[in-house]
């Protein structure tokens, strides 16, 4: 059963109330099993996402440089540097998220990167540039649209949830 084994305390074995009319009625045991489970799921999803985004770009630096250039945000001199290093940042973050290494730093960086990507896409969507998203593969994928913006917003909310979960749990008051 999902969540079993997280604790052997007797509260876990207690039958759950059928309907939760208020969050106050969620037992401590539910909180203790649900939140860590959701955080792990969020971390693994984000880790896989970053690996999926980063690894293909490592093998196509020229195409990725072009995608970055098309965004028209970075100065020309920084385009190739970003194309060379950004896929590795994504890949390292992906590995660290999945393996659970240096989580506070990794999680914060995940949020900062997703916020940067989302802002860049929204900026270019707003100014009407008709360019490829360059989010995952570097081939001819879908251009920036409301769908790619919504998708990245969803990823960002997952990352935000994980950020709050990570720092909330580590706070000395909890």
């Amino acid at each position, binding site marked *: 059963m999902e969540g079993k084994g997280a604790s052997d305390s007797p509260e876990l074995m207690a039958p759950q109330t059928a309907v939760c009319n208020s969050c106050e009625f969620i037992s401590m045991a539910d909180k203790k099993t649900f939140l860590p489970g959701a955080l792990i799921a969020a971390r693994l999803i984000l880790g896989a996402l970053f690996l999926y985004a980063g690894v293909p770009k490592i093998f196509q630096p020229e195409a990725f*440089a072009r995608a970055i250039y098309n965004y028209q945000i970075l100065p020309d001199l920084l385009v190739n*540097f970003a194309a060379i290093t950004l896929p*590795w940042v994504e890949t390292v973050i992906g590995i660290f998220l999945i393996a659970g290494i240096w989580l506070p*730093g*990794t999680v914060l960086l995940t949020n900062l990167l997703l916020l940067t990507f989302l802002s860049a896409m929204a900026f270019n969507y707003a*100014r*009407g540039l008709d*360019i490829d998203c360059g989010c995952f593969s570097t081939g001819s994928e879908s251009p920036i649209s409301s769908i790619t913006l919504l998708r990245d917003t969803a990823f960002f909310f997952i990352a935000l949830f994980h950020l709050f979960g990570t720092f909330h749990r580590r706070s000395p008051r909890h």
Partner: protein
Amino acid sequence: MVLKPVLWQVPAILLASIVLGLGVNHFRPGGLELARDWRTVAVAEKTAQGLPVISLDDAAQLHRESQAVFIDARPQAAYAEGHIRGAVSLPWHRAEEQFIDVLPDIPTEQTVITYCDGVSCELSDHLAEFLVDLGYTNVHILPDGWGRWKEKGLPTARN
């Protein structure tokens, strides 16, 4: 202190990734050069594609002599913030709805120069094709028109 590990983990992750990226790029065959003049490359590519590219100097001269109509292919909001003086607005994304209001004043044999912002911007290219399809015979594209026009201090206007 919760933030303490973050202070060294974030720079460490970034540094490790940058070292990895630069190292692999250095040793792999066909690695990217660290810096490139993307604007020159992009203009050359547009010319090689057979697009009717016009140089900034030629466009500026035609502008001085009032020999060409400049058409801004960017969204209306960008046009309102600033555009080449005398240019008319025909945003590519609304061209099919709005051309009927804009183009009747421009004869088909008139020299027309389309532009947008950034060399990789293709709005001006699409608009130029659209104009050719409508029968315009003297259509040119000014790559990165707005950016370079501003940089060179050529006449601009707002609204």
